[in-house]
């Protein structure tokens, strides 16, 4: 009997890394690695939103729409990564529940 090949990693998610301005897309070795990379990209987007929010709270000259755009992007990016994580976990669960 031949051994099952391991589940390949998901490649870099189009746009996510470029939106954060980082193009460090080396070939991920696994699903966890891919999710971690995506979370790093989201971390960049979130830290941008964070700095805008804190400068607005400090009374800085920041446009409200810029803050809302940044927080919306961070929220959407997080949703995307979370959905991908959930799909990966589903795949894992369906394999782990295979009756032998």
């Amino acid at each position, binding site marked *: 009997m031949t051994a099952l090949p391991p589940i390949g990693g998901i490649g870099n998610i*189009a*746009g*996510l890394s*470029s*939106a954060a301005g980082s193009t460090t897309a080396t070939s991920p070795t696994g699903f966890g690695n891919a999710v971690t990379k995506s979370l790093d990209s989201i971390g960049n987007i979130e830290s941008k939103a964070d700095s805008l929010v804190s400068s607005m709270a400090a009374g800085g000259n920041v*446009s409200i*729409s*810029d803050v*809302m*755009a940044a927080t*919306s*992007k961070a929220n*959407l990016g997080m*949703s*995307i990564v979370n*959905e*991908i994580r*959930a*799909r990966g976990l589903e795949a894992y669960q369906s394999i782990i529940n295979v009756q032998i």
Partner: protein
Amino acid sequence: MNGHGPFSAIDVSNSGLGYNKYWLDTIAHNIANINTLTTPGQAPFRARMVVAMPLDTNTYQGGGVEVSDVLDEGGDPAMISDPNNPLADSSGYVQGPVVDLASQLGDLVLASRSYQANMTVFKEARDSLQTTTTLGRG
């Protein structure tokens, strides 16, 4: 400006929000100066007009809008006879501002509606993207 990214619709409508906010600020400035008098011979207050310019026209879908220039309104200021005003010249006249309140209020309605329209686009883009993330379920 990120023209191709996953959130480009948000960026584009955000640029519209920024432009229209700038326009609203300018109208507020013009109306605030509706009673600004000057001595004849000096530069009168002139209403400021915002000039729009499309952003990033190299991409097919474009990148939004920005303020390219702010111009002063032309025309002659009204001469008002007010000899007791400390700003009056030797013949007793002061210079009114070059602002038409009616057209400023008309612009105010336009700017406010444009701002709302851009908010609608922003919300629609955000909701559509949010819904798209749920497509993998099921």
